[in-house]
């Protein structure tokens, strides 16, 4: 009796999670059924259509945070003002002239899009740098890896083909058949870990709040 009571209270204290888990499996059923159960389709579609809200709210929270810094007079004031000012400028432009406004569009493309490409392009320099500074044959395995990196440099530039056609063929073989299988092992272990996560949720071991 006491045990039943504790299970009941456990379920009641986790009601949103319990309902969510039931919903999760109902939604999962849509993958395997044709046509899908209409109620499940409605739930899935409604949640999808509501997704712009949380994404938009992240932006509002970010702007609010920097606005609070301005009010508190933090030492980062000029930069907080830049964040808030530029965000407000975009919002005003978009609201007044619509999101197809050319000024609104061109500011985003020439500031944010190109900034993103700058960050991503910096990856190459950030790889070359440690490859030059610390990529050393400290063990036979490391020597093998450095050899393979050199093979990849030859394969994915015209250099290998200029020396011998065998080089890019060997590089392609390693990339397609060994790296490909390794990629599968990486992903599949992760997918199994994800199934384990859901199992822990079913057992109410994952509440996404600390004990």
């Amino acid at each position, binding site marked *: 009796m006491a045990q039943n009571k504790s299970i009941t209270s456990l379920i009641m204290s986790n009601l949103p999670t319990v309902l969510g888990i039931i919903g999760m499996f109902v939604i999962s059923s849509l993958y395997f059924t044709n046509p899908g159960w209409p109620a499940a389709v409605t739930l899935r579609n409604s949640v999808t259509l509501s997704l712009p809200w949380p994404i938009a709210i992240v932006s509002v929270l970010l702007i609010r945070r920097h606005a609070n810094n301005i009010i508190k007079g933090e030492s980062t004031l000029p930069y907080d003002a830049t964040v808030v000012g530029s965000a407000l400028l975009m919002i005003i432009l978009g609201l007044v002239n619509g999101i197809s406004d050319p000024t609104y569009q061109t500011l985003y493309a020439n500031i944010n899009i190109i900034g993103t490409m700058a960050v991503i392009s910096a990856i190459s320099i950030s790889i070359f740098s440690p490859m030059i500074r610390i990529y050393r044959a400290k063990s036979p395995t490391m020597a093998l890896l450095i050899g393979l990196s050199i093979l990849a440099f030859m394969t994915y530039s015209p250099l290998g083909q200029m020396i011998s056609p065998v080089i890019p063929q060997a590089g392609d073989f390693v990339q397609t058949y060994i790296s490909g299988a390794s990629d599968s092992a990486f992903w599949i272990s992760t997918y199994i870990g994800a199934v384990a996560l859901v199992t822990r949720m079913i057992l109410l071991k994952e509440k996404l709040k*600390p004990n």
Partner: protein
Amino acid sequence: MSYEIVRLDILTVMVASFATLLLSSQFLRGVKLRQIPTVEASLEAVRVATEKGTPLLFDTGWTGANFWGHSSGLTTLAFVPSTLELLKNIAQEAASLDVRVITGTTNAVYAMMSRDFMEAGYGMAGHPERFNPDDIYFYPDNTGLVLSDIEKIHRYNIGAAVMIGGHNQTSNIVIYEALATTGAMLVAGEIWPNDNSMAALCADYLSFAEENIAIGSYLSDDPVPKAILAGEDIIKGFLIAVVVLGSILYYLGVF
């Protein structure tokens, strides 16, 4: 209305996987697990930050960003509990050593959860007053996160970092390079394989893919997550058997 079942074989494998893990949670309790290097190293990073007198950077990148049905889906959710549990433990250690922990993520919901776990860690150490919610940072996109992380690394001269999570397009290495400038100790593990490759190049301590999901179970006192982790080995063993035995059966024409 009649329903047609699509891919019954996948449905069977899914149900069998859950059944295996649920049974494991009961019957594999107490099974011993091998070590994962980043678990202890993460706490060591807090001590290194203490010695250097600088804050610790705890960056989880895109963790939790895919709450909203993004194409990377389940894998980005899988390590959410793990990173939060790790953050709680790091916060506990940091609170007792009076080290500031600065976090970075791309999701407001995850940032809110981080606050709960960090606060709990500081409370467990008996120093709730040392918790500063303003040290939890989030940005709506990966670009903002990386750019601001680099700025903070320079501004605070970060001496140690734990970067366990999911970054994007290997942008984690841009942060690693900034950490190399300040000579920081780096504990890293990434959920996605290409990002993991960057950690393999730069990290002082490294964990691979699913090991990062498993960290949460290692840190928990509860025997059930550990038992489920052991149960995953059965699924992996089954898949290995599918390839080994299946190849022979396919060759013999049985399928």
